[in-house]
């Protein structure tokens, strides 16, 4: 066990770091049922839209807390009052998803889908009759709702909207906001603060400590210049099961507490029994995950390449075992499309994809991707390549809190983590050392501590299965 000297208080007891969104929204209802708390939080944001005298609102949403629902309801709320709104999301995938949901919820609403020239809209967008796609703003400008990627909005020149909604705002780089901010008077920023920060292809600390650092995320920048803006929070995760929410909250959201919207009995994962006689750790770890939400398959310690073949085998093999054992989520069959495998690096994902392809076509629908690309997505069961597996050092990239958070918070039912043994020792050898910049508060939670907390949890006999 990890032991801290008694005098050093756990980080979570300290004051929230500077610049943190002050916790509010739903806390006065701390004892109310999750549904009531969540509704109250949304209602408060909608009320803010009508009454705020500030230039915007920031809503922090933990994983699966109904961020999209909020965006859809806020859009409907504004449209109802005849207030046109522009919406910026970060990827075409996100925009198409959002348009689909908006049009599904508000079929009467005329929606503009602004896209790049040459972009082909997917069927989930084109099936809605009231959605108009265009590569130029002119035919869309008068529609009540126009949705596009931030990158596309940056090229648009038109009169400003009164309100904008910026979705996945923590994934948006400050310079992207700078390119689009002239298009709106006020904005509702919605996003998940626990996920990966946007990245740049250059390394420089020329702008560190500046409130408008172009490499920061959009929310940090806008809050730094508008300290009076409301910070709201969605208090209920509808995605994460009761088995996952407390760990994810403690490890990644120490200052933005949330509760699961369901109890264990609402999320039942059942599997056919493992083939008799075979004492296969892959089956054992799946059984543990089905029973307790988490499974931790620990392969023998060994320093490995980033693309550890045995680890890729174990992940693909476990996915194979899972789908062969007729998994049911609350009695509904789980298809390959409801299963994802998350990695830290692209080449790891490629290695897993190769193994899956070799195991047969029934695995073709399994999503395999890096944490960056899995942000914002949701599955029933996820399998995770532990970012520190087989490493000889713990670099800042691999310790990054957001990466582990994304990987461990995509699932509705269960999550299986696969790693080489030895992560504990690795963490012991690589305590947090960060360069310290004036005027840049430390980020909490730091990756080292988050990894320790997660490992403490996974190391329990209820979850851990020695493999191979």
């Amino acid at each position, binding site marked *: 066990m990890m032991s801290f000297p008694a005098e050093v208080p756990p980080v979570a007891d300290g004051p929230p770091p500077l610049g943190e969104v002050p916790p509010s929204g739903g806390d006065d209802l701390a004892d109310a049922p999750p549904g009531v708390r969540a509704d109250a939080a949304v209602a408060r944001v909608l009320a803010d839209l009508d009454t705020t005298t500030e*230039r915007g609102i920031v809503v922090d949403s933990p994983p699966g807390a109904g961020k999209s629902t909020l965006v859809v309801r806020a859009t409907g709320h504004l449209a109802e009052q005849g207030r046109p709104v522009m919406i910026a999301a970060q990827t075409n995938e996100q925009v198409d998803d959002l348009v689909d949901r908006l049009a599904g919820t508000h079929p009467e609403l005329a929606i503009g889908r602004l896209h790049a020239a040459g972009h082909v809209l997917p069927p989930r967008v084109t099936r809605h009759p009231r959605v108009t796609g265009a590569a130029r703003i002119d035919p869309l400008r008068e529609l009540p709702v126009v949705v596009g990627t931030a*990158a596309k909005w*940056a*090229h648009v020149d038109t009169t400003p909207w009164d309100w904008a909604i910026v979705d996945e705002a923590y994934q948006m780089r*400050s*310079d992207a*906001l*700078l*390119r689009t*901010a*002239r298009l709106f008077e006020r*904005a509702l920023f919605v996003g998940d603060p626990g996920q990966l920060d946007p990245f*740049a*292809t*250059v390394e*420089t600390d*020329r*702008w560190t400590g*500046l*409130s*408008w*650092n*172009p*490499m920061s995320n*959009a929310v940090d*920048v*806008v809050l*730094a*210049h*508008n300290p009076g803006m409301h910070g709201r929070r969605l208090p209920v995760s509808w995605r994460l099961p009761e088995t996952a929410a407390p760990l994810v909250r403690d490890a990644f959201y120490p200052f933005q507490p949330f509760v699961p919207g369901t109890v264990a009995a609402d999320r039942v994962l059942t599997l056919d029994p493992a083939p008799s006689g075979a004492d296969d750790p892959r089956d054992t770890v799946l059984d543990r995950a089905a029973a307790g939400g988490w499974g931790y398959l620990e392969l023998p310690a060994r320093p490995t390449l980033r693309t550890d073949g045995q680890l890729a085998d174990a992940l693909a093999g476990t996915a194979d075992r899972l789908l062969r054992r007729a998994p049911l989520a609350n009695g509904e069959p789980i298809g390959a499309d409801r299963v994802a495998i998350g990695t830290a690096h692209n*080449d790891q994902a*490629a290695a897993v994809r190769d193994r899956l392809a070799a195991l047969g076509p029934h695995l073709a629908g399994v999503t395999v991707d890096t944490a960056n690309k899995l942000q914002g997505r949701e599955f029933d069961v996820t399998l995770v390549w532990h970012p520190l597996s087989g490493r000889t050092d713990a670099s800042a990239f691999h310790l990054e809190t957001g990466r582990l958070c994304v990987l461990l918070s995509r699932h509705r039912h269960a999550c299986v983590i696969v790693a080489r043994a030895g992560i504990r020792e690795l963490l012991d050898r690589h305590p947090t050392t960060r360069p310290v910049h004036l005027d840049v508060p430390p980020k909490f939670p730091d990756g080292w501590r988050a990894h320790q907390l997660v490992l403490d949890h996974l190391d329990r006999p209820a979850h851990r299965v020695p493999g191979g």
Partner: protein
Amino acid sequence: MSLLTTVAALRAAETGTAQPLTTVRHAHIDDHPVVLIPLTLAGEACAPLAAMVGTDRDRPVLLTVPQPRDRTLRFRFAEELADILLPLIDGCRTESETYEAGRPKEERTRWTRAPQILVPNPGGIEFIRLLGRSTRLRRTDGPHAVAPTVPLLGNWLTWFADRTDFPGSGLLLAMTRLLTDHWATGWSPGENAHLPSLLAWIDPPPGRTGAEAALLAEDPAEHPPAGPTTDPVFDRTLHELTAARDAAPDDRARAAVDRTIADELRSQLAPTWELMWRGIDLLRALPPAARVPGRRAVDRTVFTHYTTYLEEDGRPRARRDHAASAARRLAQLEDAVARYESERAFDDPLVMARYELTGEAFTGTVVDRDPDRMVENGRAGLFRPALTVRVDTRPLLAVGTTVRCAGRDGLKAEILDRREAAGAGWEIDLQLTGGLGRVRKPPAPEGVIPDLGEELCWTTLGGYMTPAPLPAEEDTPWTHGGPPQPYEPTPDDAEESWE
């Protein structure tokens, strides 16, 4: 960095000799580079102690500050440096040429030369940045007046330091970086930052391996550090001499100590001066890469712009960037990084090999071609000649990926299929989507479509996005703090005591 670099480093460790990382030189080495080796006083932010500077290997100029804590002597150093550098910079403005740029295209003029400063290491670049910062905001009037050349030098040094962050720029370069870009040693990157050892690895004296010579080159008595930090043991000598200077009873005695200090500093700088020129020789011996002149033209263009700016406006850069200028610079930097990375790969098969290893590029032989292929698309159809390429290693790029041809500028293709070939290797089907000239149906212009048996490299590198426009400074939106106060140097900037 790449596995290829690892292999080169392993071979270097094995043979005791540095191994090449490139087949050509990717940096411009000027015919008349300004070599500048600064030394600073330990413990101070930027207190110049000495510099060896010049464009002539046999005529280094030594500048010294015998008492670095003396503000007057520091500014005398800045003046002396300005007296050397400013004429050299000005000397690049003798001939101009015209070129086409902009949209719509227009004819513009630029100088045919641009300055190039070479310093030993990244610390030298940092020195230039700081010396630029500490001199550009000085006033030439009032109680703390300095010579007019001092703030001008500050502007230039700041500009050099700002430009050096752009990969591919050849205006201000650090020798250790230049060398480690082109050679791998059997030591770690940290140890390679020591210029004497690095050069020993690359070009050891007769009778020794690079590894042996590098170890010997760590001795500070033989090879003083290449600056700007000094050898702490040497500092003891200097400390005694500056104390003697302070205690000197008269100007004559002080001048004597100054001479001794200059001699001692020269002994610390001269070995590095020689190393710098050996490094230049080594780099010059490499053939320049094809795109080096193009990047140098960019240097000359920005140099021309800056000379114009200094003549028309000339205000010093503010202490920190504002929101829009920061974002603009970030966009330019990201663009420069992408261009430099892919240009290097296109120019150099050994660099391209790094991308082949990671699967971002592949080299193959054309085994089949359909030069007249049209695909259906409405009435006219699209002209999409097809190629089948045989490769040795398993292709990692997915179907649908766009690739560019390394040897043929502009030739672009889409991967249609990939499969294991009968016999050995793999085959990749490509359809050409760009670089066919303006023709919309066969035949393609002569020589555009690769021939059977031709070996070519294809890669995902080389697609650049034009970044979206940014607001003008005065239109900075509320999200980023609104329009900034335009920067005007304050009396405080000028007064900031330099002691």
